[in-house]
């Protein structure tokens, strides 16, 4: 039962302020990125796409973008594969220490990232690991598994074992069952996990900053550019593109996750 809300006139105002505070700075980014002026000030000087065009000629930036892409793909694949194993174990089996295991997997979400980054850096140096994209990937996987897990667990939760049994019962082999039933039913959750973890990796700064050595990812590159006022409009253009990419990927991921949830729930009689 919904409670009738009193003080009604104040609420819409509050909500409006809340959302302005949340999204206005982010919306300013694309607006200013089309501004035909070297400084980010109002009033706007005129419309231009030259800042976007300048991105293409910048080889250091393109290298950073390529690094981000490599890291993003590796992180999303690794954390999704590990997430699949963990999510299947958590949803399918009952074992000793199950709750503790689930908690420990989710814990990185709540650890201060910078502390983890420093300790990973110490370990890497201790073992004589060269700082590279590999160390960034390993560090980010730790932080992406919790996201991957929560997406996959909600996709697997409704996956009833009887679906696989029904497939065996109808004469299918173990491999055929995996191909024709298990994979298609959980596929949307897996794709959703890939997209979410890729997005997180793309935007991640602290670990990349500490562990990337001489190979910057996009956020690290942006951080480096902020020292030069003249580079700011270009950074705004790049930032706008990254926001756009994140929003698109996360939207697709959420749509897929919901579809996966509906599907697995539809499989069950009640």
């Amino acid at each position: 039962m919904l409670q009738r809300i009193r003080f009604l006139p104040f609420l819409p105002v509050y909500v409006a302020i809340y959302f302005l505070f949340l999204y206005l700075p982010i919306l300013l980014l694309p607006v200013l990125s089309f501004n035909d002026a070297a400084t980010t000030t109002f009033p706007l000087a005129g419309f231009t796409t030259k800042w976007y065009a300048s991105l293409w000629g910048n080889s250091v930036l393109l290298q950073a973008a390529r690094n981000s892409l490599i890291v993003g793909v590796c992180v999303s694949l690794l954390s999704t594969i590990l997430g699949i194993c963990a999510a299947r174990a958590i949803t399918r089996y009952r074992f000793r220490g199950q709750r503790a295991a689930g908690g420990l997997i989710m814990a990185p979400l709540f650890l201060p990232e910078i502390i983890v980054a420093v300790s990973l850096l110490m370990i890497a140096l201790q073992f004589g690991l060269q700082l590279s994209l590999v160390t960034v990937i390993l560090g980010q996987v730790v932080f992406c598994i919790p996201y991957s897990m929560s997406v996959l667990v909600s996709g697997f939760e409704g996956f009833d074992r009887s679906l696989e049994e029904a497939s065996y019962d109808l004469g299918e082999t173990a491999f055929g069952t995996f191909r024709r039933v298990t994979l298609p039913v959980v596929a949307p959750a897996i794709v959703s996990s890939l997209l979410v973890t890729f997005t997180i990796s793309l935007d991640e700064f602290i670990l990349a900053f500490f562990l990337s050595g001489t190979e910057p990812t996009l956020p690290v590159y942006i951080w480096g550019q902020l020292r030069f006022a003249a580079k700011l409009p270009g950074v705004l253009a790049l930032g706008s593109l990254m926001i756009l990419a994140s929003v698109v990927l996360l939207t697709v991921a959420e749509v897929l996750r919901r579809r996966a949830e509906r599907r697995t729930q539809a499989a069950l009689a009640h």
Partner: protein
Amino acid sequence: MADRPMISIENVSRYYGVYKALDDVSLQIGEGEFFSLLGPSGCGKTTLLRSIAGFDVPTSGEIRIDGVASTLLPANRRPTNMVFQNYAIFPHLDVGENVAYGLKRLRLDATEERRRVSDALDQVRLTGLDRRKADELSGGQRQRVALARALVMRPKVLLLDEPLSALDKKLREQMQVELRSLQQAVGITFILVTHDQYEALALSDRIAVMFGGRIAQVATPKEIYQHPRTRKVADFLGGMNFLRARLLADRKGDVSVDAAQFGTVNLAKPAGFTASDGHVTVGIRPERLRLLWDDERAPHELTGRVENRAYFGEVTHLTIGVDGLEQPLSMIETNDYGADDLPVGAEIRLAYDPDAFVLLADDEMALRA
């Protein structure tokens, strides 16, 4: 039953650690028989069904399906198909694809496959619904898809794991009728697991009642209802008034007992029955007791008073206290003469037929000796 049973279960046991899910079960089920495994939850009926399907491997014993030793045969190579309790409809496939799922492996030509799918859908009265998605189906329709998906494989045995328990009462009763006529139409062996005694009675050719991993009795519905062998079986299948009676005479085929206010009663003695301490348990079904109205007389009468009354629409359940009986009697009366208006405390007379009493073993062990 045919000469060679379709399913033969020989001394099958299944242990989970020290817990005995199945304890030395032997059973034969004939070709074309509608057979029910009936019992409370945890009695082993589902484990037994899953062993026949190939989802569970017995710890010891042997299962033969149509003469073939099948104990260790994987589920996908058995001539059995199963309707799961939650139906397990593949959510990413539509109705037609669900039904055709198992046929794909047979590599039939497209026309033949389509024909078999549409025949199966006709059989379960889902004609023309092949393009429906799983999440667009009602509970009853899911049940039918699960049936069609299994039957289209032309199994020798169809296994049904509590298929009606998720449906509401009206639909369940309708599906019971359909299930029975479907079985008669296809003519194959159906094995139904259920905890609903009325479902088992209404559908089955024979019923096995199970408790604690053991089979307590196997018989036709009528036999099992009218002549339950043990107190537990009698209690599980409908109401029963139990009475501790003193043994008067123990002869070869029958016994005489002193059934308190009911007087001396003669009862047929089942094979292997032994009375332990000079007392036996006898029982009489509530509907075999009848109220006597006005000056109606009966050869065997008892007087008592109404202690409780529950109105069930077409019948009224009465609890009658009788002096000299430890337990009050329960009885079921139709409402034609006004049993529904009897006030609590009313003095009544009731008639009984001494032949309606059955002799019950107190536990299965008493019969095994």
